[in-house]
Structures are given as structure tokens and as C-alpha cells.
């Protein structure tokens, strides 16, 4: 009996674990995905080695104010109104943006997956109740909700990440719920149930691995949106005063829009590039995990 149990468990798990070698090659063959990964890695490296590349605090005033890019070799991308190095700010800003993006997405995914799995798997009143909560959150404009939550606490990086995560879990929950609803009728689930597996085990070991592909794609989109939201918040001055962020740089440069528009342009380009890379990765993942045949 235990041999059969093992075989059945294997069957369920085998469906969950892709043939790794073939999958990897499929990833590498997709140009969108590869391009996205390359650009993203560039930013990740920037974030990781920011201190090495530009030691010191980027918020320090180090040069004459409002230097244009190219005017001085020392400050290749110029300086802002307070004489701060723009390039240093951009590189350090990568760290802030990526950190916030990742943690916000992680929080959102965690909450969303738990809620979605519960709602989708158990159905009934659990589902109705949870979906009502989801609706509550989704009827309130997301950005406003984030602003309110940030206002409750101190506008630090952690609070911002938490706020964005709390505001974005409903989308994940809906997605996961849909997956669970369709997968819970699958044969391998019935097999697992007949072997007496506990609900928790079925959810975590059987269904969840199979529900992951759209969630993975959604994750990259969530990180991208989190970065955009954080940029918006920083622009509105709801940011951590001790940390450089791209949105904050744009906010600072707003007043000099007429004379030194590069101060708003350059950080925006950085945001666009980082978010673009995430979207490329997301698109590539979507093509790989959900293949279709149109051009």
C-alpha cells in the first residue's frame, strides 16, 4: 500500500515539477525574456554595488547646484538644486525602488495566495466571506488606500512596502482562487484525498505547485506596479527622507521643470527602464508558461 501511496504522490508531484532541463532551455530561447532579464540584472547589480560604485551618502551636497549633464566630468549626469550628484542618486535609487518593489510584491503575494487558496479550495461561506473582503478592497481606489495606510504610520521604506502590499493582494487572491477552483476538481486531487492527505497538505503540495504559472507572471507585474506606485508616493513627498528614490528625485526636480528639466527626465528614464525590464520578463514568462501560436 505504501508503494502505491508513494507512486500516487509521485504522480501528483511529477505534474508539479517540470522537466527542468527542457524548461530552462525554453526560457533561454525566448528573446523577450532574455532581454528583460539582462536589463533587470543590470539594475540589480547597480543596487547591490551602489555603495562600491558611489561611496558615501548620495544625499550629500557635493558640487555646485544645477549642473547640466555633460558640463562636468565629475558629475556626468549633473547635479540638482542642492548640488547633489544625480548619477549617484540614480544608482542608489535603484536599491530603494527594487527593495520596495520586491517586498511589496512579496507581501501582496503572501496574503493573496493564502486568501485565494482558502477561498478557492474550501468554497462555501469561506469563499463568500473572503470574496466580500476582496471586493471591499477593490472598490476603494488602490492609490488612495496606499496613501491612507502610509499616513497611518511613518513614511519609511518598510511602511511604504507594507502599504503597497496590503493594497495589491486582492488581484493575486482572485487569480489564485480561480486556479484553485478549477484544480480542486482534478483527478490527482481526488487521488490525494482518497489517500487521506490532510487539506493543508493537498493545498500546499498538490494544488499550489500547479497553480503557480499565472501567479509567477503576475508577480513580475506586481513588482513593476509597486515600483510605479512607490514613485508616485515619493513624488507626492510621502517618502523616506533618508533614502534616495527615483520618484523623490522627480519630485525634487519638479520646481526646476522650466530650467533644469533633466532633473525630472533622468530619474523617469531609470524608472521606465527598470519597469520595462520587469514587463519584458513578465511577457516572456507568459509566453513560455502559457504558449500560444499567434505571431
Amino acid at each position: 500500500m505504501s508503494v502505491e501511496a508513494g507512486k500516487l504522490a509521485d504522480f501528483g508531484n511529477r505534474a508539479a515539477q517540470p522537466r527542468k532541463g527542457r524548461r530552462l532551455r525554453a526560457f533561454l530561447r525566448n528573446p523577450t525574456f532574455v532581454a528583460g532579464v539582462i536589463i533587470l540584472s543590470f539594475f540589480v547589480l547597480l543596487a547591490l554595488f551602489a555603495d562600491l560604485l558611489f561611496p558615501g551618502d548620495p544625499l550629500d551636497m557635493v558640487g555646485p547646484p544645477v549642473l547640466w549633464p555633460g558640463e562636468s566630468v565629475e558629475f556626468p549626469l549633473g547635479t540638482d538644486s542642492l548640488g547633489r550628484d544625480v548619477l549617484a542618486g540614480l544608482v542608489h535609487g535603484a536599491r530603494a525602488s527594487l527593495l520596495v518593489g520586491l517586498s511589496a510584491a512579496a507581501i501582496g503575494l503572501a496574503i493573496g495566495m493564502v486568501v485565494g487558496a482558502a477561498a478557492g479550495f474550501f468554497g462555501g461561506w469561506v469563499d463568500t466571506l473572503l470574496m466580500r473582503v476582496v471586493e471591499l478592497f477593490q472598490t476603494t481606489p488602490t492609490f488612495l488606500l496606499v496613501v491612507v495606510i502610509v499616513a497611518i504610520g511613518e513614511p519609511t521604506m518598510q511602511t511604504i512596502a507594507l502599504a503597497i502590499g496590503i493594497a495589491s493582494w486582492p488581484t493575486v487572491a482572485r487569480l489564485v482562487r480561480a486556479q484553485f477552483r478549477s484544480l480542486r476538481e482534478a483527478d490527482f486531487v481526488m487521488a490525494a484525498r482518497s489517500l487521506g492527505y490532510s487539506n493543508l497538505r493537498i493545498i500546499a503540495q498538490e494544488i499550489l505547485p500547479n497553480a503557480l504559472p499565472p501567479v509567477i507572471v503576475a508577480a513580475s507585474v506586481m513588482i513593476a506596479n509597486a515600483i510605479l506606485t512607490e514613485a508616485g508616493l515619493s513624488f507626492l513627498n510621502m517618502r523616506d527622507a533618508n533614502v534616495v528614490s527615483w520618484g523623490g528625485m522627480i519630485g525634487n526636480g519638479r520646481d526646476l521643470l522650466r530650467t533644469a528639466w533633466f532633473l525630472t527626465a533622468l530619474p523617469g528614464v531609470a524608472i521606465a527602464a527598470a519597469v520595462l525590464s520587469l514587463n519584458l520578463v513578465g511577457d516572456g514568462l507568459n509566453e513560455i508558461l502559457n504558449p500560444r501560436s499567434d505571431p
Partner: protein
Amino acid sequence: MGRRILTTLRRTAIHAGPTVLGIIVLDFLLLQLMPGDAADVIASESGVATAETMAALRERFGLDQPVLTQLMNFLGHLVQFDLGFSPRYNMSVLDMIMTRLPSTVLLMATALSLALLLGIVIGSVMAAWAGRWPDRVLSVVVLLFYSMPGFWVGLMAIVLFSVKLGWLPSDGSMTIGANLTGFAFLSDRLEHLILPALALASFFVAVYARLVRASMLEVQRQDFMRTAQAKGLHPFFIQLRHALRNALIPVTTVAGMHLGNLLGGAVVVETLFGWPGMGRLALEAVLARDFSVLLGVLLLSSLLVIIANVVIDLLHAWLDPRIGAA
């Protein structure tokens, strides 16, 4: 169709009632968690911060009462369509919101329409030239717009159209004190509207363009397209009447989900452009800890989303006769 409207409205009212109540309670409690209250802000701004003045302020606006009492008061007033009084603006919240609501609705409606129109056109072009260079170029452009923050697009637009070219204004919703009438008035309003609307719409143009492209390509593969061609109809007519109507169905679903985002995005865009709308009001209310106003704005925003979803549902049903067929 008329019967459908009634059933949808009734269904929504029944369903939305508890949701709205839940929103009110949730938001109320959330706001209570915020440190400080309106009295603090007013006092700090006016520079008078004695204990007596603050106590007097609090008592005047009922801020010293226990949370539950405040909530009950609020609900009680709400039933009479009274949203309370704003300590900061010194007018009733409802009046305050009503002065700002039309501007926001105008901005959102314009942005959404622009986004849909541009998105559908661009998406159709991309689908028609799928795989060839117009499609590739547009795909890159679209992806870029999808990645750029809306407010940054607005800023760059200001640099180009306001600063460099001087064609369009960058602040407010109209030229104040000019007392324009008729056509000049409309054109002035329009000039002020374009840049904010474009900034708000930029992200969504990308979403709809991608969606329409995928949807149109899907539709081209359907058998009924060949049937239409076999009837000898003109290709453009076929695309418009047969393909597009089918392709727009998923677009309506997605557009419905975006309304919340649209309002949220309006907060930043309105602040950037000095647009006198509800989004900017909400932000000011947060900073001023003016909970009455904030609560009113949150409530109204949610109502707006619910109403818009109903409209989208009806639109969806009109486009697709298969819905509700059972």
C-alpha cells in the same frame, strides 16, 4: 434591454449595500488609526496650540467623542445625505466634494475615452500588421508607455508642450479671471484638459492596445470571419462590424477593473497639474487629517467605482448577447 437594466440595478443595489457599509466602517476605523487629528493640524498651522483651543476645536467637531459614537453619528448623518462638516475648509463636506467632483469625473471620463479610443485604434493597427514592422515598432512604443509612470509622462508633456512649445497650459482646469464665454470658454477648458487627460491615460492606452491586438488576432482565426468574407463584404466593414465587436468584449471586462486605478492615478495627476479635483482633495485631506472630508471622498470614490462597474456590466451585456442567456 430595459428589463436587463432594471435587474442589474436591483442586483447591484442588493449586493453593493453591505459592501458600501463595509467600506464605511473599514475606512472609518482606518482613519482612526492615523496619528493626530484635524485639531492638531489646524492648531499647528495657525500657530495657536494651547490646550484650551485644541479642546474647544475637538469639541466643536465632535472629535473628542469615543470612536463608536463618532461612527454612529456619521452613519446617522449619512442616511440624511449629510456627510458632515469639514474643520479645515469650513464648509459642509458634501458641498466641498460637489465642487470638486465634476472636475474629477471630467478628467477620468476624458482619460478613459482617450485611452479606449487610442488603444483600440493602435491595437487594431498592430493586429492588422501583425508580425511586420508597424506591429513591432508599435509594440515597443506601447510597452514603453506601459512602463512609464503616468505623472512622469505628464511632466515630460509639460516640458514639451508648455515650456518648449508654449502651446498648452500646465496648471489648473481653466484660466482664472478671464471670464470667457461660449466657444472661447470651451476651447480654454479643452486646452487645460488635454495634458492631464493624456498623462492619466498613457498607462491604459498601452493596456488596451495590447489587449485589442491579442483579441483581434484571436478573432481573425474564427470561422465566422471567413463566412463574412465569403459573402463578399468589404474587408474594412468586416473588421469593424464582425471582428471588433467580438474583440471588444474582453476590453470591457478589463476596463471595469481599471476604474479604481484610474481614480488613484488621478490623485497624482491632479496634484501635478493643479487640477481642482477629488484626488487632490483627498491628498490634502490626508495631510490635514481632515477625516470627514477624507471619509466622504473615499465613500464617493467607492460609489463611483460601483456605478461604473454597473455601466460596464450593461455595456458588456449589450456587446455580447450570450450573457444572461440562460
